[in-house]
């Protein structure tokens, strides 16, 4: 082909393109859909927030469901789906009336029957819900928007239970969905929250997609924590699964994503060094590490030995080993988390500093014979990996013999459910972390349940603690409740339910030039977040 022919062909192609280009230029540009791209701490696998306590599923729940009540940033319980409520003088009858205009994503109105069914399903699984329903004799719909809850005796935590901020959150669902057995996963994902779950666009391990629910009716108050007006300011939210932390950090720095929910602490300096990235601690209450002991087998079946372990441990070494930067941790004597209504130092201050001599003295009193503490060490979660080696070191200094056994987290989770002796596949101790919202009071915090075989892993058994918890739950006077919470803490430290080994914070990384408006809360919330570049 000659160069002349090739030029002619090019000119013809250009000429053909002119009308098309002119047409495009003349067309009114459609409003661009705003999409928020987020990498969460985990891939969303299970989409039933009642069936599992996994935080990622709880976060998913907050996207598409709403709650009757919610906590604001002052940890006050405020109405959310509820418009008005009243409590009878004898404190036995609660009547709730829903706000006008609440709709499910399928266009149906939210009714009282839906809420009753949802509460029942939630309470079948959740310990705080189980406690609530043990006081309830009847729930019934008064009219389409109103339902009543009849109690057998006064219970001080009705509203607090319905405002529970973390797993399992009492999310409201349509009755037909809420009537799914709590032991089965739901198969429809219809809520009344600010976003709609686009099930057909969900690719597990790849991407989860939510779109703005245009018929959502937000409250008029300003948003505050899990409460207030939930206004979706973007059309679409994509949760992109990105298991490699370094890749996620690079993707944020390169502008391929807008928000990284939980960058690991060792990579925070990279993000802090970027002018485009804002590191925002959107959960100022943070998280708390827990050292949990197994009461079933020696040596921790002995109270003095448990007290010795508490004496040997202290918070700062754990926090330094994992978090490192003091900006993101706090030594806090309060078991119910610092800066909360039930934060006290009494009893909890034993963990501010190690006392190895006291630990050895207690072990001698207890007649400790050197039985090794089988300490489970999880190796694959960055926020937990360094905890067990620190615990092993402190315990050894306190006179213990420690057998630290390494395993991945999922194996640890399976093994901690075993009640066998350590040598037969059981365990003596492990470490984990709780989001502050899960441990704000003696009822929601699983670690204080000392109902023996029904307790959380570790199976502590203490009648006096159970009486204190029961008193706390039934107390309706706020000041008396506080005092009872203090007594629970003192008792917990005395009998050794567990040791709280440090409060820490997880900042979220946000591209300053791409997104703004992220709220503080017990979970990451994407209402109120707007895009800057469209």
């Amino acid at each position, binding site marked *: 082909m000659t160069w002349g022919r090739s030029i002619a062909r090019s000119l013809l192609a250009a000429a053909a393109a002119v009308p098309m280009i002119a047409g495009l230029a003349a067309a009114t540009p459609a409003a661009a859909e705003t999409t928020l791209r987020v990498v969460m701490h985990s891939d969303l696998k299970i989409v039933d927030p009642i069936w*599992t306590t996994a935080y990622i599923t709880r976060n998913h729940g907050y996207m598409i469901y709403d709650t009757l009540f919610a906590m604001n940033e002052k940890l006050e319980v405020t109405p959310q789906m509820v418009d008005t409520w009243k409590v009878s003088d004898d404190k036995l009858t609660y009547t709730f009336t829903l706000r006008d205009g609440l709709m499910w994503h399928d266009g149906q109105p939210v009714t009282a029957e839906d809420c009753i069914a949802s509460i029942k399903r939630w309470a079948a699984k959740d310990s705080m819900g189980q406690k609530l329903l043990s006081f309830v004799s009847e729930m019934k719909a008064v009219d389409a928007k109103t339902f009543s809850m009849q109690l057998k005796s006064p219970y001080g935590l009705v509203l607090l239970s319905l405002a529970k901020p973390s797993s399992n959150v009492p999310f409201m669902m349509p009755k037909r969905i809420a009537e799914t057995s709590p032991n089965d*996963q739901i198969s429809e994902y219809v809520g009344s929250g600010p976003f709609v779950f686009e099930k057909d666009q969900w690719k597990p391990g790849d991407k989860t997609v939510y779109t703005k629910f245009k018929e959502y009716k937000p409250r008029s108050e300003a948003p505050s924590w899990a409460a207030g007006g939930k206004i979706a300011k973007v059309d679409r939210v994509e949760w*992109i699964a990105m*298991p490699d932390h370094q*890749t996620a950090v*690079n993707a944020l720095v390169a502008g391929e994503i807008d928000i990284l929910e939980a960058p690991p602490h060792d990579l925070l300096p990279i993000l802090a060094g970027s002018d485009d990235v804002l590191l925002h601690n959107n959960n100022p209450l943070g998280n708390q590490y827990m050292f949990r002991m197994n009461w079933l087998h020696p040596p921790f079946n002995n109270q003095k030995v448990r007290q010795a372990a508490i004496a040997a441990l202290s918070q700062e070494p754990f926090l330094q080993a994992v978090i490192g930067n003091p900006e993101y941790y706090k030594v806090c004597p309060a078991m119910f988390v610092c800066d909360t209504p039930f934060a006290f130092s009494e009893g909890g201050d034993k963990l501010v500093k190690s006392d190895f001599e006291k630990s050895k003295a207690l072990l001698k009193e207890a007649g400790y014979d050197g039985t090794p503490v089988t300490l489970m060490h999880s190796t694959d979660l960055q926020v937990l990996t360094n905890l067990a080696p620190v615990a092993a070191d402190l315990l050894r200094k306190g006179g213990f013999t420690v057998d630290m056994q390494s395993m991945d987290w*999922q194996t640890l989770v*399976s093994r901690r459910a075993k009640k066998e002796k350590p040598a037969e596949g059981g365990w003596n101790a492990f470490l984990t972390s709780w989001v502050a919202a899960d441990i704000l009071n003696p009822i929601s915090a699983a670690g204080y349940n000392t109902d023996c075989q*029904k307790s959380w*892993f570790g199976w502590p058994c203490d009648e006096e603690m159970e009486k204190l918890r029961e008193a706390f739950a039934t107390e309706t006077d706020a000041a008396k409740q506080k005092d009872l919470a203090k007594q629970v803490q003192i008792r917990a430290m005395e009998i050794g339910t567990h040791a709280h080994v440090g409060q820490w914070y997880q900042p979220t990384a946000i591209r300053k030039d791409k997104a703004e408006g992220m709220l503080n809360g017990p979970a990451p919330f994407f209402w109120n977040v707007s895009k800057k570049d469209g």
Partner: protein
Amino acid sequence: MTAFIARRLLATIPVLVLVALFVFLMLRLTPGDPAAIIAGDNASPAQIEDIRERLGLNDPLPTQLVIWSGRLLQGDFGESFFFKKQVSELILQRVEPTLALAVSTMIITLLVAIPLGVIAAWRQGGWIDRVVMGFSVAGFSIPVFVLGYLLIYIFAVELKWLPVQGYRSITAGLWPFLQRLILPSLTLSVIYIALIARITRASVIDVLGEDYIRTAKAKGLPNRTILIRHALRNAAVPIVTIVGIGVALLIGGVVVTESVYNIPGLGRLTVDAVLGRDFPTIQAVILVFSFLYVLINLLIDLSYTLLDPRIRY
């Protein structure tokens, strides 16, 4: 030939049965409880037990095996413990990215490795040979994730020529599809280039010592013709063998690359399933991989008949 193919395909049945049995037992006898993982960290022992019951994990092992085998014979891989989706659907969603990565890696590998190997063999002992062998050693030695991070840092973060991560289906456009495959394919191909170049070199050196090569030289044939038409063709059998093994390893071995570059392929599905103890998914993926390995081996054996007319089945 047809009889040979039929025999080989029939022989896959006992292989797959053994693999299925082995995987089934191994999963249930090793530590880890999917119910505990599904229930979440805050779950009570009672909640975990409920889930175990619901998933049939409390049933006797033989019962679980019979139920699963029965479904398998009907082509049903079952439902994922986590996703409430059919495992076959999950696998189908992930096949395309892994296939795209594997094919693009092999294309780059073959285009680079074979010429390098041939040239190194032709210039045996010379500086080209030493460079190629040095590269080969380096290629084996550098971990895939280290190379991946390095390439990301240079080409994506600093130069901003290519994206850091992700996968786009070819239906979203050719350039977005290719753009996101360049770095992961380069990363993964290095080790295969190292391996195949080395084998090519050794195989060609072997052939270059043969009488017919001397005859071809004596006839005055050009070097290119001698290398490609005579040497490479006769050296092809071991090269094809290693390429085939490489392809088989590639399909199962892309997991690190898929993680580093955030490609939602079969490798990541396998790792996620293993970490989550998602038994139905693990069992299905391993069976699929096993079948693919058997198929690839069959194709390798069949290719010998094209390369060497003396080989007949």
